[in-house]
């Protein structure tokens, strides 16, 4: 379990996050939503260990993040950021292999190679392996980076649960691949994996999330089961929009119209 307690975070006097208390339970898909600038990315950067100068506590499986070395955390926590710029020619296969860096010293082991092959197959990107990353489309680049972070936490670790952070992973993807990616994530989740992602589309949250968290001006405005907590009031409070939930015949979850 990943536990955040009393998180306070400020940059140059601007309060970015305050009084954040929440827990990311393994076995679930957690989605963080909120308006631009509400602190979503800062929140997951703190939770993932990238931002260190915050107040409060972050605990991975009851161990304070300050006590975990960067190298060992990387074995069971991976993170997909929003930036994709690589200033040099690099092959897709080389990038995906980097996902296994935390697990081997100098030479990729047989196990690492197998994991890479499995991930590549799952995400259907075999045909891209020998391409230069910079010649790919935005959507293809996104899928390659996703393969890399997936490979990083692919195998079970006996001592720890696994945590996968995704910062707006649906960017640049068409609807078909958005759906495909979310289904892949759902399939990947098992008892010892928590996936924590920032998304914008509330309908994806309704359809796929186990837990949702709404941030507003750095504070947690609501959290819980998406179908239970997402309603017109919350939308007008957080996003300042008029919206209504519409139930679709034959579908378990409603959709939000706005």
């Amino acid at each position, binding site marked *: 379990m990943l536990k955040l307690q009393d998180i306070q975070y400020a940059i140059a006097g601007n309060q970015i996050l305050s009084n954040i208390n929440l827990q990311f339970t393994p076995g679930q898909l957690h989605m963080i939503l909120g308006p631009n600038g509400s602190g979503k990315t800062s929140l997951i950067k703190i939770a993932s260990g*990238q931002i260190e100068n915050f107040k409060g506590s972050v605990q991975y499986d009851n161990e304070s993040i300050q006590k975990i070395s960067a190298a060992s955390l990387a074995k069971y926590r991976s993170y997909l950021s929003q930036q994709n710029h690589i200033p040099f*020619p690099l092959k897709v296969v080389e990038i995906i292999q980097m996902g296994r860096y935390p697990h081997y010293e100098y030479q990729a082991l047989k196990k690492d190679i197998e994991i890479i092959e499995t991930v590549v197959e799952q995400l259907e990107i075999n045909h891209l392996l020998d391409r230069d990353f910079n010649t790919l489309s935005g959507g293809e680049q996104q899928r390659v980076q996703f393969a890399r972070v997936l490979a990083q936490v692919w195998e079970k670790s006996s001592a720890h649960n696994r945590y996968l952070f995704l910062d707006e992973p649906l960017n640049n993807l068409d609807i078909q691949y958005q759906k495909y990616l979310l289904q892949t994530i759902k399939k990947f989740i098992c008892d010892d994996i928590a996936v924590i992602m920032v998304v914008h589309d509330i309908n994806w949250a309704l359809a796929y999330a186990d837990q949702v968290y709404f941030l507003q001006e750095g504070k947690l405005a609501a959290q819980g089961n998406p179908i239970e907590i997402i309603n017109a009031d919350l939308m007008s409070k957080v996003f300042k929009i008029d919206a209504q939930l519409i139930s679709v015949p034959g579908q378990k979850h409603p959709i939000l119209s706005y």
Partner: protein
Amino acid sequence: MLASIQWGAVSITNKQMAEAIQHFFHGNTPSSIYEGVFLQIRLPRVILCLFSGAILSASGVFMQGLFRNPLVEPGIIGTSAGAAFGASIVFVVAAYLPIEWKSLVGPLLVPLFAFIGSIVATYLVYSIAKSQQKTNVLSILLVGLAINAMGLSGMGFMTYIARDPQARSINFWNLGTFSGANWQQVFIVFIVLILVILSIFKFIKPLNALLLGEEEAIHLGVDVKQTRRKILFINTLMVAIVTSFVGVIGFVGLIVPHIVRQLVGSDHKKLLPASMLIGAAVLLLADLMARLILAPSEIPIGIITSIVGAPVFIFLLKKNLFLKTDA
């Protein structure tokens, strides 16, 4: 297949080396007296040249990886100029020291001051470039330009206050030359080279991870701050030592990694060793040209590398700025 490319590079290099050495040998063996010349002047020169080429190229790879920018190299961002300035201070001041002092501290002081000069220069460029949210190509180059100008004007001042023979050697050395090579220098540079080769193993993964971006490297378990400090230190050390012996040789660290990236890609596991081999060959070729163009007198090697390197730099600059506006 990738391994075969690398072997190709190695064998080409070996061939060039063999040819170059043979050439000198044949050109200078009318009598056995010249074999002394070969052993005491030519051979250390060739070896120093090979080592320097390898080190400067590795330095280019290190810095480009660290700054995440293909336009950075020791000559451009001021590392070499800083080293040269530091060394020129010793050069001039030492002339006023008593002879026995000079022989005692001279060989150590020059690399030491070169190191201080280049670490100050590199750190300045890096911290100014870092202070912006996104490290910008133009800002690094402009700061590098300023630092370079500072280093060179410092050297100019030293030249001005120096006595004539010193001034001439500072000047020559400003543009790089291997004419003063001796076995002692070869030995010291060899130690640096070993250090570089050993450090490569440690830095392959962090440097590769940094290609993805700083955040990505952190999440792959790389201690980015520590890695950066270590690489900057080793990089500065190697450039400073080489520069204190052979002067400022620009653009080698720019052209060589650029060419090698086209051949083997950007994975540092292949990029670093291949760049060092090609770099050694390229610099040897440049030194050969420096000696042959105006034979029997020679021109500074920095002129050769700049003539070839500057257009490559402009080409890369254009490509990079174009990409920037495109994105």
